[in-house]
Structures are given as C-alpha cells and as structure tokens.
C-alpha cells in the first residue's frame, strides 16, 4: 500500500447555510478536515446531520457559504460553474444511492457518456468495455437500458461510469442504501478492491457494518465533526 501522506481533500472551517424563509439552516458548521490520497473514509451520522451536504461540497455540486475547500490542490470556492462542472467530469466520480443512470441510454452508453464529454470522441480503446467486464456486466447486459437491470447491476454500471475518466476521488452517498444486504456486500467488495488499488474513496452511510469497510470513520452531528 502506498504512503498516505499527501492530502487530496482539505476543508478549512467550511460552512454551508441554506437561507430559508423560515430562517437560515446551517447544514455544515465550520467543518475542518483533511483526507489523504488513497484513503477510504466513511462519513456517518444521523439523518439530517449534514452528510450529503458535506459530500456535495466535496463533489463540487455546490460551493461552501464560507471557509475554504481544496481539491487536488485547487481551491474550489472561487470557481465558476464551468470549472466546477469540469472538475466533476474529470476529478470526481459520484456514486449515488439511487444509481442515477440515464434511462434513455443503454448501460454501455451510460458508462461511455462521461468519456465522450471529456474526450469529445467515442471510446475506441476498449476502456469502457473493459471496465464493464471487470464489474461483471457482460456485453448482453450492456445493451440493456437501466430499468431492465437489477439494482445491483445498475449500481455496478454506475460504478463503471464513475471510474471511466479515472477520477482522483470516488464519492459514494449511501451506495448500498437501495440494495438488499447480499448485493450491498458485493458492491462494498468492489469498492474495497478499488481502494486497495489506490483509489481515494469517501462514502456516506448510516450502517455500521458498511462503514466497517472503510479505514477511517468521520462522524457528523448537527453539521459539525463529532
């Protein structure tokens, strides 16, 4: 295993406030933490504690209200939408609880999509095919549209999609939340294996035995690191 010395994600007093008519909601309250390259971190905490909000900041889907967030050496807070979108395309792989595959595209096309967006050409290297094979989605399954696949198969396709541009960071928001426990374990094995090969993974979960796959657990309560 490689030396986990270089921080790939650094949060310094990151605060996220949602302004609502009924009063501001402080979803994240001055969170400071650092995650090193190659780490597998689980984020735990009760519902509504701010886990997803934290992951969305790291995933560049949103920017903090205050504080600094540094991703692979780049400060995110000052970035415009175009730059944030580009980071999501190239540096971050997102795996969602609800798989979030595009229903109009086949499994193969779903995986190829980020590749197309990045390289602006079709994959002629066999990379997409190879990734799908590794995740146990054969050619016949690849031609199916997501609704025709089982939950586990969909999540495998989603993992392949998240990996296709070889991102520095893999973010997973309750990746097993919509799966039965047997399938959930299979998915966790895949993630653990990816981490063993050096991938940095941050995973939100509220299940202790899922969090056990990670080597470090950060617990969030009321928007603070507990």
């Amino acid at each position: 295993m490689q030396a986990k010395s270089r921080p790939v994600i650094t949060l310094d007093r990151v605060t996220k406030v949602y302004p609502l008519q009924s009063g501001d909601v402080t979803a994240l309250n001055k969170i400071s933490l650092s995650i090193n390259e190659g780490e597998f971190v689980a984020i735990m905490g009760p519902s509504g504690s701010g886990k997803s909000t934290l992951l969305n900041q790291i995933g560049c889907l949103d920017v903090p209200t205050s504080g600094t967030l540094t991703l692979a050496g780049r400060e995110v807070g000052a970035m415009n939408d175009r730059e944030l979108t580009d980071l999501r395309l190239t540096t971050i792989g997102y795996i969602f609880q609800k798989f979030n595959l595009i229903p109009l595209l086949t499994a193969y096309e779903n995986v190829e999509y980020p590749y197309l967006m990045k390289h602006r050409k079709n994959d002629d290297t066999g990379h997409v095919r190879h990734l799908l094979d590794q995740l146990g989605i054969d050619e016949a399954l690849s031609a199916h549209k997501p609704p025709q696949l089982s939950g586990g198969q969909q999540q495998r396709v989603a993992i392949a999609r998240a990996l296709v541009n070889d991102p520095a960071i893999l973010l997973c928001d309750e990746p097993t939340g919509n799966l039965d426990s047997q399938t959930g374990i299979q998915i966790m094995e895949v993630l653990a294996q990816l981490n063993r090969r050096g991938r940095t993974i941050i995973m939100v979960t509220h299940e202790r035995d899922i969090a056990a796959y990670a080597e470090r657990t950060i617990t969030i309560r009321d928007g603070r690191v507990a």
Partner: protein
Amino acid sequence: MILKDILLQLSVRSVRLHFLRSVLAALGIVIGVVAIAAMGMMGANMTLSVTGELSQMANNLVVTAYTGGGGFMGFGGGGGPPGSGSGGSQSREEQMITQDQFRNIRDIAGSYGTVYYVYSQSDSIETSDQWGRATIYGLDPDIFAEVLELEEGDYPKSTTTVVIGPRIAERFGLEPGSKLVIGDSDEGSTATVRVVGILKEKGMSMDLNTDSAIVGSEKLYTGIYGGEGEYRQVNIVLDDVDNVDTVKEEILAELNDRDDEVTVQDSSSMLESITSVLGTITTFVMGIAGVSLVVAAVSIFNVMMMSVTERVREIGILRSIGTQRNDVRRMFLYEAGILGIVGGVIGAVASLLIGYIVVLGMVGTTEFFFTWQSLWYIPFAMAIGIGICIISGVYPAWQASSLDPIEALRAE
C-alpha cells in the same frame, strides 16, 4: 462531432418516447409551413402568369397625354382604360392627345408598325332588363380587323353596331343581334346599338381592355360624346419588339421637345407596378398565414416546457456527472429542432400537394408551379418553421440549463 451524437441521441429518444405528443406539436408547424408556402406559391404563380401575359405585349406602346405625374397605368384586369377609373364625370377638361400629336406619332412610328388612336369612356349601359357600367371604346373602323379578335359574329360596319367583350356578353346575356343602350338619358345623349360580334377573351392587357368593354366606330363614339380629334390614347403595335426603346425615345424627343406633352408606356412599366402590388399582397397574405406559426410556436413551447419538467432529474444527473450548461441547453435545442425538422419536412411535402391545389384554384393555371420562383417558397417556409421551433425552444432550454444540479437530483 460524435459528442453531438450522444446529446442528439438523447433528444431523438426523448422525442420518440413521447411520440404522440411530439407529433401533435409538430402538426402545428406542418400547418404553418403549408399555409406560408401555399400563399407564397400562389403569389409567385400569379406574378408569373401576369408576367407571361404581359410579355406577349412587349411590342406594345401606349402614348397618353402628359398629366404631370409618372403617368402610371392603373391595373384592373379587364377594367377601364387609363384615366377612366374616376367614373362618368370625366371628359373634355382632361388631357387628351390631339390630332396633330397623333399625326406626329404616326409619322415617327408608322414605319415600325401599326399606330392607331383610341377614344374611350366609362359609361352606363342598359339592356332590356339590366343596367350597368362598361368601357366604351371608339376606334377607326379600318383598324378593327387588325386589333380586335372575334369569337363570333362580325366587325361593326355602321354607326349603330358594336362588338362586345366576352365578359360583358356573359354578364348581360348578350349575343349577336341583341340591342343595348349606351349612355344615361338623364345626363346626356344616348345611343341604341346592336351587337354584331363577340370578342375573344383577351385577359389583362395594356393597350385595349376589351373583355368587359363595348367597341364601336369612331363616328358612333363622337356621335354620343363629341370630342372629335381628342384621343384618350394612341396605341402602337411594333412589328419588332427590339424597336421599343428606339420608338419610345424618338417620340419623346419629338413631342416632349419643349414641354412635356406625352407619356409613353411600355409593358415593362406596367409589369413593374403590377409586380409590386402583387408582391405587397403576397407578403400580407403570407403574414396572415404566419399567424398560424405563432400558434404552433406556443404549442412547441408548451411541449418543450413539459419535456424539461419531466426530465429535471435526468438534467440533474447529467449536470452532476460533468455535463456543461451549454451542452444541456444544446440537448433541448436539438429536441426543439427535431420537432421543427419533422414538422418542416412533412409541411414541405404537404405544401407541394396543397400548394398545387391552391394555385390551380386561385391562379387558374399550374403552368408556372414547377419553377424555382414558385417552389422556392417551400424551403423558405420550412426554414421559417424550423426557425420558429428552435426559437420556441430557447427559453425552455435555458431553463433546463440553469437548474441547480442538487435541486434537480432531488426531483422524483
């Protein structure tokens, strides 16, 4: 670019997924395209058929007294001669061509073709059971055979006989042998004349509009209205169309030497004014047809908004995995474009059919239908239809692209 392909693929599949809805929205575009193209083609075919008729008169020149203005000829297919539009009260004080001027013109143009003078007047006419108005022409009897073509009967040989145009014959139920009264007894002298011949249908013309006119001898005419030797116009029929400019210039040089005495018109000046009037009418009618495209635009807009609303979650996914805003925007513009192209293409095909029927019905001939001046309106209307679709998609596409990714992902 292949990238366009995947976004285009998404748009195509989205349209296919909502096939019926898309077809209905495109139908509006189809109707708009057909309406615009059919009206445009109708205008073009009218212009072309008028041009065709007038080009047969390219060797005609009409000389009228100079009236100050440009001396534009009114155009009324088969209506009165120039200057007669104002009704019955016109006459002596109006500018006429004099006998001297006529002789001058004949001296110049006589060697190039036929030169003859025309008396004309709009007046009321009466048959045994009907009353109406018509143009009364008075001509030199020697010229009848040369400038008038008979459908049936004979040319007038006395001062009590006339030939009449086919439309007037039809309207008043006249045939050779019928009698009619020219003039109103309350206003001046009248004459009872006998119809001896019916003229061939001639269509619009610049020298003599005989279709709804009564033509008699000079003596008959001056017997009723007086004014001998004061001609409404002088017509010149040239043997060679190439001499039009020469003759025109010679007449102007001779007669308008000191003062502007006469105006010489050829078919091109008439063509110009007719073409311009037809152009205005065509544009106006196409504008009305264009209103149907506005309705279509509303329905496209509606369908696009529905599509954006239904695909909010998908937009959230696309954005969250790194799709730029302008790519999302483009995806929806493609969708609008697809509706436009489908509507436009179907509209173009339908225009060919419906345009043909409209032209046949409204213009009476499809002789000019398959010319580019006419068919050009099909791609023109198609482009407008597609353009309208894309414009209708701009706001929905913009809305889709400015959705917040997190909010969009939350949508069910």
